[in-house]
């Protein structure tokens, strides 16, 4: 049986609908962000912390920021943080707490997570299951 692109699209939709996709996403976000340390916090927490500290730093530089329109300011800051593959988040801030060696490379982390061969295998397995059940269903109905 040959498959074409439409089938693949249908299959991926099916896969997403079964909730595997969201589960994967959540997993990646909640994984401990630094495997080397034992009691390291999850990626999500680390990211939040990082962002909070960056913002604080920016406010310290220009204190008028907090007295301006909050929504507008936060949007502007957000766009700055996201710019150039999270360059601003990645750049360390020794001035604050000195642990500059702990480089926060969000992009690298996400990529490494995604390129994990284990992940690919897992997805494949799940897809296989989905496909089987789907085909069974189709056979049953015909």
């Amino acid at each position, binding site marked *: *049986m*040959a*498959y*074409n*692109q439409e*089938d*693949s*699209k249908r*299959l*991926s939709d099916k*896969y*997403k609908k079964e909730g595997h*996709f969201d589960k*994967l*996403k959540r997993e*990646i*976000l909640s994984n401990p962000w630094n495997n080397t340390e034992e009691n390291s916090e999850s990626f*999500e927490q680390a*990211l*939040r912390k990082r*962002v*909070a500290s960056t*913002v*604080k730093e920016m*406010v310290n530089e220009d*204190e008028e*920021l*907090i*007295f301006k329109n*909050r*929504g507008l*300011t*936060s*949007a502007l*800051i*957000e766009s700055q*943080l*996201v710019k150039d593959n999270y360059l601003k988040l990645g750049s360390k801030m020794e001035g604050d707490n000195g642990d500059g060696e702990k480089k926060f490379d*969000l992009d690298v982390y*996400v*990529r490494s997570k*995604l390129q994990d061969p284990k*992940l*690919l295998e897992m*997805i*494949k397995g799940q*897809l*296989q299951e989905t*496909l089987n059940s789907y085909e069974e269903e189709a056979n049953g109905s015909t």
Partner: protein
Amino acid sequence: MSNYYRRAHASSGSYRQPQEQPQYSRSGHYQYSNGHSHQQYSSQYNQRRRYNHNDGTRRRYNDDRPHSSNNASTRQYYATNNSQSGPYVNKKSDISSRRGMSQSRYSNSNVHNTLASSSGSLPTESALLLQQRPPSVLRYNTDNLKSKFHYFDPIKGEFFNKDKMLSWKATDKEFSETGYYVVKELQDGQFKFKIKHRHPEIKASDPRNENGIMTSGKVATHRKCRNSLILLPRISYDRYSLGPPPSCEIVVYPAQDSTTTNIQDISIKNYFKKYGEISHFEAFNDPNSALPLHVYLIKYASSDGKINDAAKAAFSAVRKHESSGCFIMGFKFEVILNKHSILNNIISKFVEINVKKLQKLQENLKKAKEKEAENEKAKELQGKDITLPKEPKVDTLSHSSGSEKRIPYDLLGVVNNRPVLHVSKIFVAKHRFCVEDFKYKLRGYRCAKFIDHPTGIYIIFNDIAHAQTCSNAESGNLTIMSRSRRIPILIKFHLILPRFQNRTRFNKSSSSSNSTNVPIKYESKEEFIEATAKQILKDLEKTLHVDIKKRLIGPTVFDALDHANFPELLAKRELKEKEKRQQIASKIAEDELKRKEEAKRDFDLFGLYGGYAKSNKRNLKRHNSLALDHTSLKRKKLSNGIKPMAHLLNEETDSKETTPLNDEGITRVSKEHDEEDENMTSSSSEEEEEEAPDKKFKSESEPTTPESDHLHGIKPLVPDQNGSSDVLDASSMYKPTATEIPEPVYPPEEYDLKYSQTLSSMDLQNAIKDEEDMLILKQLLSTYTPTVTPETSAALEYKIWQSRRKVLEEEKASDWQIELNGTLFDSELQPGSSFKAEGFRKIADKLKINYLPHRRRVHQPLNTVNIHNERNEYTPELCQREESSNKEPSDSVPQEVSSSRDNRASNRRFQQDIEAQKAAIGTESELLSLNQLNKRKKPVMFARSAIHNWGLYALDSIAAKEMIIEYVGERIRQPVAEMREKRYLKNGIGSSYLFRVDENTVIDATKKGGIARFINHCCDPNCTAKIIKVGGRRRIVIYALRDIAASEELTYDYKFEREKDDEERLPCLCGAPNCKGFLN
């Protein structure tokens, strides 16, 4: 049986006599022969035959009847006789032999004779019978008659004088034996009849042969040879016609199967409209494709009474196009009468044609697709790469056809490297094709765009495959009807393929869709799942980043910016603000000191006594014009640069801003001074001078924030206690006054006057005017220890600010309301809840003054009239005018009257002039007949009225007894007026503009009429309507009753008849002091 006889008698009555003679009568002859045979063989025949024979005999008796004189009685007799004679005759035939019988065959008389002779031998019954029958006698057997040459003896059956008769041939030899004939012959130029001898021995010959006209058996003729039947002349159909009505429908259908026509139905209809009125027009569509067949059914209608019209129209339409067809917009149509099932046949014929066409087309398409599929297969076999097969083909094609054709530069952007089919401009122009033709023809293909370009028509496709399919199937196959030559033309497309593999960014989306459109096929399940998984990973990455941005970073940044996260920064800021406030306070204090010093210098003793009268006056004035004053006072206080503390708290300003504000405040004060001066028109200049310093002092005190609510009525106590402690130290304000009753230093505020009203925080703030007030307040509040938490303090500030704003806004609104309507907005009009929830309710007319400007000041003229050249404000001018007119009416009125009199006189002269000219011309001209009344019309104008809807206003002042305007309208009779009134009421035209002139005439200005109809009724009118005769006609003219000022509303008494029914009565809204309350 008797029946039979009777009938025989009746029918054969006239032949009776001839029947006597067998040689004349067939029946007789028959009988004779029959009888004869019987006579010969009677013995051999059986009984029945004899009966038959006897029947015959009896019949003969019958035949004798006419000889009896009484027909009716004879019949009777025969009837009875027959019943008896049957058996009798039978017997007789048995007994008597054939002798008598045979005799009877020969003659009647003989029978009689024999019967008579044998009567003795016969039984008595028969004798009786014969006796009863009279013998036949020749009645006219006289000599006189016998001598007549042609006397005929009926008994003998021959002419009596037969022997004397001679043949003419024998006696007269002078005549030809063969006879003669008459011929018409031409003799001496005249036709004459001639008798000629007949020659029976000569054979007749065809006279045509003699003249040589007939040659070889065929007639040579000059008449046209007819190969079809000649139609009878059309017999017109009328109401006396029998048979089915002639067809009045025609069918129009295309002569050739040219489906390309884009003729609109309406043009066909219009074309055939010229033959007669069309009652039905129907265009038929192909039931399969719903496309027009261009077959039309047109039915003509006949106008009433002329039932032949329709058939005639249809006939003439068909007749006209019978021979040469009809051309409509360049296409040939056939026209025939719709008879029987012609229409259905035609439609089915065209539908069949279309079906065949479609089949052909589908086959072509199929072939093209198959071909392509084969090509693809071949390519696929060659190379394994999935994306590859398309490209080589594209290249070869582009080299073959696309090399010489290029997309024009200006189209590059639009085409955007997509495949294009091109038809050259020369070709298109020659046949006058348009883009729509192609659009229609290629509607089955997925064309992206059709472009009409100076170089030709370009058809853009999004996909190469589509373009190729289309080109293969249609190029050289597609036909479009040429507009110039009216024949289908084959069309060839040139396929121009994209040159570059990458498209520009304009078409990113379509290019991506293009790439995905190349069907990727996965051979194995693993490959398929692998690819899907990769796709999912890609999706995952995308969503992850979106999530990080939107869900994580965004909210975190927002939270991080919270004030609470930066306490130290907040503290810093608060400090700064405190400093600022202190600066301001100190500055104010400095200013204050300066002013006090100045005041001390200005102090004078004599001011003590003047103060009493002054202040009294001022108070009085305050009471009078409270509305004006209290607002200005407040504004002053606010703008003096001394702001309430609450406001300062809310303001996040720096020191820069405060100074300019102060300056501004000062200038504003001076401005307000001017305004106030204007407002207080009645006050003298002296007072103003005195007041100026007062105001300054008022602002000297330091403003403070109020901390609690119950401060009321303290202030009046203050001045006396403190006032005279140190005369020199105290400012002029606190100086003692020589009055009987102690007077407060500050004028009473609004809340002092209205004790019932609740105090707003603003009032409270304003109440504290100097340090002394503040001291008292502090004393009062010393017992009260406020329990202030940080949360409540923040809320308090806000509450104060809110209530303050509310008060200010309300004040502003009421100011505007007063300015606009002269009164305050009535509380009754303010909605308790929402207006919608309240539903409909009636608002009293009194309350309407609150929001309808034309309602206010009911009895004063109002400035709803807008005269564009009058720039000045209306009110003061009017007041002056009114004053002047009131003061010197005796002056102005005669003057006006005289002028108007002059005017009228000159008008009359003008009129006479025109009359004279009319007489000179001699003819009655409409141009010259002018409305005399119009000349004397006063300038008036209609506008919204305080009385009712619209009113008429004087633009200029009008003197009493002057004519103002004529009431113009349609002149109708009384019954018409009644009818119209009902109709107007029915149509919802509530206002009545009917004006009765006399018993029979009413003037109706409802639909057509002058503006005089807008004049309202008033019980105290300033005008009156008079009926005057102009040129023999009664007309209504409005005259001024009294002097009328400019812009005053004109009114007159409608003088309606009193209505007895209370429900019918119309309320009067004039508002005059002597108003009767009702119009009727």
